[in-house]
């Protein structure tokens, strides 16, 4: 089929539009990346784009910012803290939300729909609203500033969205599977771990990405429940403190910001394909 000239023009417009938008979207991040490799004395004098005049003149780049952030800024400790906060705070709520979503989707009990809607409805509560009451209980129990306290807090806060998304997926599994499992005499817990979990991997993966990104990037909840101590503080807290204490040392901030982004980007790119499929098959039935 011969292409009409008008189709050809609109096709080119489409490409131009998309590429321009993509450049606009990525430009701020590129600026930060380049700045993080520039020596401190020039960062405040000239814009990051000036390196592009001679992009292959490697004398204008340095690894010094990364060295000082990673080895002097207490970032190593903060990175470990972040991992130690994020992994349990992702796995624990997924398990609990999965169990709850399974019971809401496939068990009959009084008040089931009402209860489920209330759980989803809790999404409206602003996090900031919960800090004072919870903190006063945590203080009485002497658990403020400990890791289990923040694991449970993130689990509670993430629960409404997780139950909602997982329910959408688990409720959509074919009924026959559950009937035949029951005929074979499988208990409900066997059904959950042998059938529901393996079949829900895409949904679980996408929910896991959301929760992981949320917890890893969280500053507020960590600030409230862990306090400002560097012993337990995550990367975001470390970077925020750098912004406060060395607000003028932009080159250090840029390197710190990239260190904090590294792991989330790896997680995102490696689980990306599940992510799109998981949402597709889940709550959204377009």
């Amino acid at each position: 089929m011969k292409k009409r000239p008008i189709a050809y023009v609109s096709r080119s417009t489409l490409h131009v539009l998309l590429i321009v938008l993509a450049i606009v979207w990525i430009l701020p991040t590129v600026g930060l990346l380049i700045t993080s490799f520039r020596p401190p004395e020039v960062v405040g004098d000239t814009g990051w784009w000036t390196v592009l005049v001679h992009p292959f003149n490697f004398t204008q780049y340095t690894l010094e910012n990364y060295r000082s952030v990673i080895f002097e800024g207490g970032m190593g400790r903060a990175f470990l803290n972040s991992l130690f906060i994020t992994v349990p705070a992702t796995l624990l709520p997924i398990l609990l939300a999965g169990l709850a979503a399974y019971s809401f989707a496939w068990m009959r009990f009084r008040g089931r729909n009402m209860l489920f809607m209330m759980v989803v409805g809790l999404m409206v509560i602003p996090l900031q609203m919960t800090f004072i009451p919870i903190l006063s209980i945590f203080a009485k129990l002497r658990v403020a500033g400990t890791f289990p306290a923040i694991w449970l807090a993130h689990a509670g806060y993430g629960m409404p969205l997780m139950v909602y998304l997982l329910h959408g997926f688990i409720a959509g599994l074919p009924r026959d599977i559950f009937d035949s499992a029951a005929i074979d005499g499988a208990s409900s817990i066997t059904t959950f771990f042998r059938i529901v979990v393996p079949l829900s991997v895409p949904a679980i993966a996408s929910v896991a990405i959301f929760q992981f990104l949320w917890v890893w990037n969280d500053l507020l909840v960590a600030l409230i429940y862990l306090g400002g101590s560097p012993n337990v503080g995550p990367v975001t807290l470390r970077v925020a403190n750098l912004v406060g204490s060395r607000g003028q040392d932009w080159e250090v901030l840029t390197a710190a910001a990239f260190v904090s982004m590294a792991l989330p980007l790896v997680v995102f790119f490696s689980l990306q394909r599940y992510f799109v499929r998981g949402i597709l098959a889940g709550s959204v039935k377009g």
Partner: protein
Amino acid sequence: MPTRRWVPWAYAGPALLLLAFFLVYPAIDTIRLSFLDRGGDVFVGLENYAYVFTNSTMLTAFRNNALWVGVFTLFTVSFGLLFAVLLDRVRYERIIKSIVFIPMAISMVGAGTIWKFVYAYRPASASQIGLLNAIIVGLGGEPVGWLIERPWVNNFCLIIVGIWMWTGFCMVVLSAAYKNIPRQLLEAARIDGATEWQAFWRVIFPLLRPTVAVVTTTMIVFVLKIFDIVYVMTNGNFSTEVLANRMYKEQFSFSNYGLASAIAVVLLILIIPMMIVNIRRFRRQEAMR
């Protein structure tokens, strides 16, 4: 499925306990606190609420929240839709999708640093290190204090950061729904002589409407609670205050728990209608199952 009566509760129980402790109880306690004085000892009636609706900073915060809800929601959802529909037609879809989604993987603190290099302001005599001002000066203009120029320029600049971060979310969800639409429908419309524009509005959009509704309400619920962008970039100075940031300040800078709680309750009341819309939609979906 014949299950004993306690079994469902054993499954849902742990999740419900966490929710009761971390969300339900604090919500109830906050409502109680909102009628008490700053230390939470003396009953003051509606005094905190009167302050919320009359204080000039609070009124600025209300205006800015309204601005966020309108502008942020409009642009995240329409850009998300634009990307979802247009990217389906090109071969480099995955690359651009990743680029648009990257900001979602970046912490607010990181994003704040990124955007400082876009909005940085230097006097006209110095060389500009912020991208926007460099472009303006390069074109012969005067540098602009993007985050200081109140009230429209700086608020829009903050909202742009939000749009940059959250369009990726809208795009991913809308794109998933778009790919679920049978291709034949679009082909049929084209064969019948519909232009792309007509095909989109008469065929595609009606089918996407439920998903657009989900994404829109989610964005509104999210943006009403907007906090971190403002906190990191201006901390509400220069007339950029929003409700959640004000609440945080009253709580942790001024230790005025009564007032902070009243702001929280007002925020909650503003969000509830969106949630009712969501729940209605869910009921309809359940009925079809």
